[in-house]
Structure formats: C-alpha cells, structure tokens
C-alpha cells in the first residue's frame, strides 16, 4: 500500500513541477545576487542571504531559508491536502476502500507519501541551492572551513552534520503542515479547501508572531520555531530552540494525525 502511494505520488508530473517551481525562486535570487553583487543589508532579508556573496556554499542553507516561510509550506499543503480529498473528489476513494485495505492503513500510506514528499522537497532545495550557489556565487574548496554565525570557524565535517540536522529539523517542521492538511483533507471532499485551510492556519500563526499582545500564545504557535534552524550554525551549538521546535511539532503532528485518524476511520465514504 505504501509503495503504491509513493509510486502514485512520484509518477505524477505535477509533483515534480511543484518541486521545480520550489527551486525556481532561490535560483533566481542566486543569479540576481551574482549579477548585481547586491546582498540585502545586514538584518534584512532571509537568513544567511547577506553572507552568501562571500561564500557560495552557504546558499544551500540560504535557499532553505528563502522557501521555508511560504513556498515550502504551500507545496506541502497542496500535496498533503490532496491526499484523501483528491481521491474523494475524483471518486476513487470508494474503490480504494473496496480492496481489503483498512482505513488506518490507507491513512498511514498517505502520511508516508506526504512525508516522503517533504523530505524530497527539502533535500532538493538544499542540493540545488548548493550547486547553484557554487556555480554563481563562488566555488571555494569544499575542504575550506566556514565561518559560523558566531564568528568562529566550522570544519567541513561540522558543517556537514549540522546541515544534516538542519534538513532533518526543517523536514520535521513541515510534517506539522502536512498533518494539518491531511486532517483537513479527511474533513472535506475538496483538496483546495484542505490546502487553503492549512495555509490559513499557518498565515494566522505567522501573523500572531508579529503581535506583542499575542506573546503568551507565541510559544505554542506552529511556525514559532521554524527559523531556529539558524541556531545550528552558532558556536557553541544552540539547541534549546530546536528542541522546543521539535517538541511543539511532535505535539501538533500527534494531535492532528490522531484527529485525521479518528475522523477518517469513522467517516461515511460517499464518493
């Protein structure tokens, strides 16, 4: 069942088109930076973007920071929002469930497919960002140390495992979006409604993060810790924000997937 769902997802042209579009914006940014040499002023623009002009390899991380606030969650919400509601809209959900397949197993398969999409998207953005960054913004030897956010030098080995941690953290953060879209996907027959619902939830969270009056709520907002992956490039390593982010996302994922399971397992399937 899982293999079937993965095959369906990655055989779709739309999936790869979404991933290509996801990579388009960082590529445009890298080319513009290379052509003009004008980086954002310190403290402005996405994380690491003011530093990539000096080190093209950093663009892998900058590319993730560019797509993380909006484009990555949109693509994840589109794919996960379609998981159940798309089958329902196409009238194929009934036929899927006629097979000797339990609803919980089908939901797990959809969840695994969404997770795989998140992982492939994040890895692709990092890889394309790395290649584009080195091609356009400078290809210093890979054995060269990188300056950490704190001004000390990180060895290539340290950079590698910290980047693996950053990719894992961003992937896990996106699972919260996938879980929300998947839950909404079990509530409606319209994939667009599920996607927009998940995005409304995230936009609301991002908005509340900018309002001081909402401060007591902020530690519990799903987008609160997304950008703390930057802490993985500080020296000494700062893990408290990342740990809080992982804990918060784990709660959202558990509760939303639980709700998706409770609803889908008891739902009347009419289409």
């Amino acid at each position: 069942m899982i293999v079937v769902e993965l095959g369906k997802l990655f055989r779709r042209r739309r999936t790869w088109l979404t991933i290509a579009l996801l990579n388009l914006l960082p590529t445009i940014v890298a080319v513009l930076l290379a052509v003009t040499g004008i980086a954002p002023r310190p403290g402005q623009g996405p994380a690491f973007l003011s530093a990539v002009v000096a080190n093209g390899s950093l663009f892998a991380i900058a590319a993730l920071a560019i797509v993380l606030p909006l484009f990555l969650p949109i693509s994840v919400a589109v794919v996960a929002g379609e998981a159940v509601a798309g089958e329902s809209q196409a009238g194929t959900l009934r036929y899927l469930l006629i097979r000797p397949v339990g609803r919980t197993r089908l939901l797990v398969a959809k969840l695994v497919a969404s997770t795989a999409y998140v992982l492939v998207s994040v890895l692709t953005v990092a890889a394309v960002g790395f290649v584009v960054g080195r091609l356009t913004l400078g290809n210093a030897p890979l054995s060269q140390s990188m300056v950490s956010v704190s001004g000390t030098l990180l060895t290539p080995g340290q950079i590698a495992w910290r980047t693996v941690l950053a990719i894992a953290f961003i992937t896990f953060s996106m699972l919260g979006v996938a879980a929300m879209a998947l839950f909404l996907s079990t509530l409606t027959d319209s994939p667009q409604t599920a996607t927009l619902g998940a995005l409304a939830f995230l936009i609301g969270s991002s908005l509340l993060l900018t309002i001081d009056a909402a401060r007591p709520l902020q530690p519990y907002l799903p987008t609160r810790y997304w950008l703390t992956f930057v802490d993985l490039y500080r020296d000494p390593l700062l893990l408290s924000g990342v740990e809080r982010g992982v804990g918060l996302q784990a709660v959202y994922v558990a509760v939303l997937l639980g709700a998706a399971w409770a609803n889908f397992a008891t739902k009347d399937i009419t289409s």
Partner: protein
Amino acid sequence: MGGVIRSWRWPVVVGSALTIAAVPLVLRVLPVGGEHDDAAALLQRIVAARGAAYSGYAESTGALALPVGDEFNDVSTLLGGRTELRVWWRDDDEWRVDTLDPGGERSLRVSPSGSWSWDFEDNRATRAADAPAGTVRLPRADDGLPPALAARLLSGATDAQASMLAARRVAGRAADGLRIRPQDPQSSIDRLDVWADRESGIPVSVEVYGRGESRAAMSTTFLDFAPGRPPEAAISFTPPPSARVRISSRFDLVDAIARFSPAQPPDVLRGYPRQDPLAGTRGVGLYGSGVTQLAVAGLPGRRARSLDRQLQLAAGSHAVPAGTAVDVGPLALLLTRPDRSGIQWLLTGTMTPAGLSEAADELLHGQGAPS
C-alpha cells in the same frame, strides 16, 4: 460493536490533546515549595551573588518607545522591543553576550585585555580597548540580562523596601521572589520584582514597573540557566580570515558630549550628589542610585536644536516651563530651553516628571558651571 469501536476514537484524541495542552499550565502553577520567608536575607543573598559566574539564554522585553533615530537603534530595540541573549559570564572582567537575530548574531566578548565585537551579517569584527567600569556609555545588550539589571536597580535597596513574592520556576529551576518598593518620592519606578535562583542566589528574572502601570516597563528572564564558571574557550575570539577587522576608537555621540560638552553639570542636583566622573567624561553628570537615577548633559546649540525638533514630534511630548519633556513609561526625558550661557541641558532617568522639571529649573538657574 462497530459503533462502540468508533465511539472511543474521538474521546481518546480530544482527551490526549487536552492532556498535552495542560502539561505546561500544570508545570507553571505547580507550587515550587521550600520558599524563603525572610526578604532581608534574600536581598543579602542576591547582593552577595553579584559578579558570580553563570551561563544561559535569556529574553528581555522592553515597552519603552524611545523617540530616537536610527543611530540609537540598538538602544531603542533593547528598551522597546524583544531581545534574545546568550551569555557566558566568567566574572565581571571576562564575559560574552550574544544578541541573537533570526538570521544572524551580534556578539560582544570582553576580557581584561579589551573587547571584541562580532557582527555576522556585516562580516565585521571590531577590537576595542578595555573600557573602565563607570565609563559613560549607551545601554548595551548585556545591561538587559537579569543579573546586570538587578545589580543596577538594587544598588540602593534597603531591607525596609523589600518583601517576599511567591517562588517561581525560571528556566526549570526553583527561584525565590523579592519585591522592592522604593520609598523615594522622586523615583518613577513603582516596584521591582526579582526572582533569584535558589541554588546560587543569582537573579534569573526581573520585572520593572512604572508608577500606575500594571504592565512591566521592562522584563528580562532566563529561558535556560546554569550557574558555574563557563570555559574560557566560549569567550575567546579570533577574527575569521574573511572578516573585516576594525579597531574602534569608542568615540560615539555620548563620548563626544562627555568630553566636549560646553558645560559641566553641578556637584549636587535635587539633593543627589554627583557620582565621581572618570577622567575625560566630565561633561555628563550621573546622579542617584538604584531605582532613582538621573543623567545630565549640556548640549551645544546645533545638536540641541536638532534634538528639540525630534522630541517635539515624539509621542508623549509636551511643553513644560523649563523646555520640552517626553515621558516614556518610567523613563523621562527633558530638554531645557537655553540657559543664560546659551546651553541647553538634556536630562533623562527614572525620575517623576515633576522631579525632572524641578531638576531642570535648578540647572537653568545657574547651577551648571561653564567649563
């Protein structure tokens, strides 16, 4: 049977969600226990812990919207916004404080031989000579740390002003609470709430309230905290090869006023003796201690006129007989009209508006001696 199986799913999910949501709430209201009941002893403990070593991660929040331009951006953010700080404090002469931004970091590392400041996004390292304690300077990120803020504001506190507050968990550790209510009628601070780590006595959370305000004008608290001496390696710094390295002269606007002000503030103002000025900083006068502090400087005409225009446009600005005043919570600013020698005095501090006006009157009536 199927209906029974179906019926338990939603209650299980909703129950689990409510349980998870309740955990932080329960941890917050859970009594800490083993509280001190002697405010004077706790005050002594906090004072004794001054300069003790620690490390941690703190968040400071100010509600003071300062009417200042871009050149004082760091100060206005510190006093009027949220600042995330990471600190390693070996002793008062050797420490590191990082100001964390979502995409970067500004770090200040101080050692007996001098200081390094590092700005990641600007790729710039700046070396500065050691600044003697008591040097007149603008507020910096490290001033917003709970131990530093408590040390500054508790410097004149007495046992009679102290009372106990309920203990709290701060950064997951038991912390005893102390409230200081100043009895100085000229102070604009209504109360100061300090929670000190039970194990070390180091202040881990501080809230400052202005008179008549229910919301803290400034609060700072540790989210992670560990008493004990951090390793030297966490503080040492060598500029990375690609960085732009500068040698700072430490010469900013405050230095300029301190050194070249056309007048010297008086030795006594509103009954407060002037703190001993360091050599070369006689142009700025500092008065008071603890929760009542006042800084005074004489400004030359062109600078004063520019500041006057800025203050008149600021929210909360109003004319007083002595000049133009701005009240920003418990922090008050007043720029006098020119005195007989053409000098305009800038007064700022934690004094009531009435106290500040009276101090301005005292200056205008010739107490400040032209240098």
